[in-house]
C-alpha cells in the first residue's frame, strides 16, 4: 500500500494544508506556490506531487508552465469520511436518550 496516495496522509501535513488553502482561491504555478514558503523548492515540489497523486490537486499545462487547481470533489470525500462514524454515534446516543426518557417518566 502506498500511503502517500492516501488522501488523509496528504492532508496530515501542515505545509500541504497551507498549499491547498493557497490554491483553493486560484490556480497557481509551482513557482508561485513555492514563493509563499520558506521551504526549499524541491520540498514544495514533492508536496505538490503528493497532493496531485492523491487527486487533491489537478495539473493543467498553460504554455510552458503547469498550473495547479484545487479539486473540491476530492476534499468532499474527506469531509464525508467521518460522517458515517458520527452518524453511528448519533444513533446510539439517540437510543440512550429515548430509553432513558422512559425511565424518567416512571
Amino acid at each position, binding site marked *: 500500500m502506498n500511503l502517500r496516495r492516501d488522501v*488523509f496522509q496528504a*492532508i*496530515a501535513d501542515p505545509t500541504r494544508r497551507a498549499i491547498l488553502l493557497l490554491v483553493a482561491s486560484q490556480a497557481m504555478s509551482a513557482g508561485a506556490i513555492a514563493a509563499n514558503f520558506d521551504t526549499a523548492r524541491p520540498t514544495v515540489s514533492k508536496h505538490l506531487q503528493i497532493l496531485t497523486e492523491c487527486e487533491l490537486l489537478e495539473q493543467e499545462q498553460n504554455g510552458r508552465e503547469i498550473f495547479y487547481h484545487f479539486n473540491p470533489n476530492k476534499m468532499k470525500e474527506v469531509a464525508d*469520511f*467521518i460522517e*458515517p*462514524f*458520527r*452518524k*453511528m*454515534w*448519533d444513533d*446510539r*446516543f439517540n*437510543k*440512550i*436518550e429515548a*430509553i*432513558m*426518557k422512559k*425511565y*424518567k417518566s416512571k
Partner: protein
Amino acid sequence: MEQKTKIIADDGKQELVITREFDLPLELLFKAYAEPKIVEEWMGTKVLKLECKKHGSWQFETTDPKGNKYGFNGVIHEFIPNRKIIRTFEMDNTPFGVQLEFYEFEKLTDDTSKLNMHVIYESVAQRDGVLQLPFAKGINMAHDRIQDIVSKLK
C-alpha cells in the same frame, strides 16, 4: 445546522473526541452507563460483567442474527458517579487493539447534560482503522468484516 453529536478526529493523531448533548438530566444519563440492564437495552448486548468501581472490569457479548458471538471487554480505572468513568475497551479476537476511554459527564441544566468521550488508541493507524471500520453500513456489517479479517489471520 448545529449537530448534537460531534466528532473531533484531527489528522495524524491517535485520539478522537466525541461529544453529545442530551435532553436528559445528568443522573439519568450516567445511569445509562452504570446499570447493566440499561446498558443491555441501548447497546443491544449482553452484559456478562460490569463492576462499576476502581479496578473493576467489564465484559459484554453480542450475538448476531447468525448466532455468532462477539465479545468486548476492558477494565475500569476510575468510576466517579455522575462525573467520570475511565476504562479500557477491547474487542475480542480482532486486530484493533485496546483503546483507553475517558467519559466525562456534565450537568448543563436540570434537564440537560453533556457527555464528553475522549478515546486514545495505540497508534494513528489504529485510530484511522477504527474510523473507517464499519460505519457506512452499520455495525452488523462491521462484524462480518471483522470475521473476514479474523478468519484470514488464522
